[in-house]
């Protein structure tokens, strides 16, 4: 990995009394879009506060953009944008007024603040509504304003704390698309936190998983996908027979978790509760497709779908795919 680390921590520990929020976290994050995954209380927000230079760590070191968080907090915050998780917008001002004011708070001169505000609000997809008071905005629009204020001073890095929180599925897609664009089109490194594993992997170059303040894994998503491919195969019936048949053909098969199937469509409840219909098949090479096709034809069952998918973050926890018992 030749990329320069935008965030580097070593043995970073944070204790609040008896609670250890971060426990010896050592991780280097490259430029690009990085997902920070962990359950609520895993230490994500604590890490962000330390990275912004607002919370002194109990021990260990952290550097952001090559600057030490303990001594160069102001300089870091000048070049970093932060989108808080919770609602933080006053309702009685317009998006334009708020974002322009916050641009000035980041050190931009008045004229530049106005120009950047107009540009940034357009980039996050706020148009005419930006002249209306924020109190009347939908959740999705508010999230866009929060994102705009984090980008308005053209930071080198943005820290996005749960940007998809409270959004409907379409809103989530839009927000994730924006996050991806920030990394690729805008050239700004992104650290995006989420407790939803499947969500961020699609837009991230790199994924860090923490749990109870301990680093579980840190790896590039491209690496993960390259190591092994998997094929999701859904049939109308007799999936166990199909699995047996495929295993005889020499590929590894396991029943897929119906809730984790990344199609966006909710699995039919009777299927999820009842007989197995979805399989996860190891994709060795092109011949695997033929193998599945032939096996399905031999059994005479209906093939609902056969879908190549990227490795999910969940598999990072699960380890090696196991054969069905």
């Amino acid at each position, binding site marked *: 990995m030749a990329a320069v680390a935008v965030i580097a921590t070593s043995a970073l520990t944070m204790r609040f009394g008896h609670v250890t929020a971060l426990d010896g976290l050592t991780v280097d994050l490259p430029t690009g879009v990085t997902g920070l995954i962990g359950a609520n209380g895993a230490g994500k927000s604590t890490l962000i506060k330390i990275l912004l230079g607002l919370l002194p760590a109990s021990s260990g070191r952290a550097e952001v953009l090559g600057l030490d968080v303990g001594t160069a907090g102001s300089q870091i915050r000048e070049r970093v944008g932060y989108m*808080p998780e919770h609602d933080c917008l006053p309702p009685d001002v317009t998006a334009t007024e708020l974002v322009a004011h916050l641009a000035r708070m980041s050190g931009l001169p008045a004229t530049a603040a106005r120009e*950047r505000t107009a540009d940034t609000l357009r980039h996050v997809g706020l148009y005419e509504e930006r002249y209306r008071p924020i109190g009347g905005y939908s959740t999705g629009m508010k999230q866009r304003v929060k994102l705009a204020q984090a980008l308005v001073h053209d930071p080198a890095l943005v820290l996005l704390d749960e940007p998809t929180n409270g959004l409907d599925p379409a809103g989530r897609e839009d927000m994730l698309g924006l996050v991806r664009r920030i990394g690729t089109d805008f050239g700004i490194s992104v650290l995006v936190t989420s407790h939803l594993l499947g969500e961020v992997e699609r837009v991230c170059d790199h994924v860090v998983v923490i749990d109870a303040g301990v680093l579980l894994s840190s790896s590039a998503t491209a690496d993960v996908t390259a190591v092994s491919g998997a094929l999701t195969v859904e049939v109308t019936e007799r999936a166990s027979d199909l699995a047996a048949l495929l295993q005889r053909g020499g590929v590894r098969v396991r029943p897929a978790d119906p809730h984790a199937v990344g199609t966006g469509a909710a699995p039919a409840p009777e299927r999820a509760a009842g007989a197995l219909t979805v399989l996860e098949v190891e994709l060795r090479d092109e011949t695997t497709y033929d193998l599945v096709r032939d096996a399905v034809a031999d059994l005479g069952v209906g093939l609902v779908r056969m879908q190549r998918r990227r490795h999910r973050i969940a598999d990072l926890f699960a380890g090696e795919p196991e054969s069905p018992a």
Partner: protein
Amino acid sequence: MTSPAGTTPSGGRPPAEQGVIYDIGYRNYTGPRLGRRHTTRALLVESLRGAYGLGRSTRSKVFPMILFAIMCAPAVVIVAVVNATHAHTLPLAYPSYFTQLQVVAAIYVAAQAPQTVSRDLRFHTMPLYLSRPLRRNDYVLAKFAAMTGAMLVLLAAPLVILYAGALLARLPLWEQTRGLLQGLAGAALLALILAGIGLVIAALTPRRGLGVAAIVTVLLVAVAVAGAVQGIAHTQGNDTLAGYGGLLAPFTLVDGVQVWLFGTTTNAVAGPPGTTGGLVFALVSLAVVAGSYGLLLLRYRKVSVS
């Protein structure tokens, strides 16, 4: 999407002339990034404007503007009367003006101090400030200065009107100028004290209504208690106690400092007793200002980032 005006590159007009908006893509900012001094000043100016509803909705302009008008109205009337009757002095000395309108000043600080600080607490806007180069102390400094400035505008504007009217009536220039300067000095001290008390109370609660009620109550109760103590002591012939009773309310406190500094006649039941009394009034004033500033710094040390 072919345009009817011809699609060949050579024959087509430049796209801008066809009124098509093209996404010019993300542009990086290469201009200057100004330091904390600049951002503190920008926050000060924004908050000062906000204290009069400027740059906010029309609804938030109404109340401060009405109070400002009420504060200035007596000065306008006095000026009109003095000019019409060709009087030789102003009927009201500059340093006495705020005493007559202390209720208006109290209501203004009660209404606008929560507007200045509890808004950011109530809507959890503080993380947006704290994640920027500005430090907590810069925020407190900007807000304190803005609130003081807003109070000073309210207290000084009628004095300036009086001064302009006095000059128009050809009253003695030096005497009027001295009176104005004394009045402005008192106004500045009162602005600092009221801003300090108002902001400390407002910063304790994110709820605006509660802040407004608390500030009005504290100020008016202080005035009542000071008046009662002074009155009772005075009728019992204890003028020293009557004098020190003025320490209990901001308005009589500043009045006492003016008496000590400029030798003006007191507007309270009794002025500070002697030089010692004057010194005590001045020290208490400074302690109130420094104390409220210190309390605000402490309060904002505890404000969380998320």
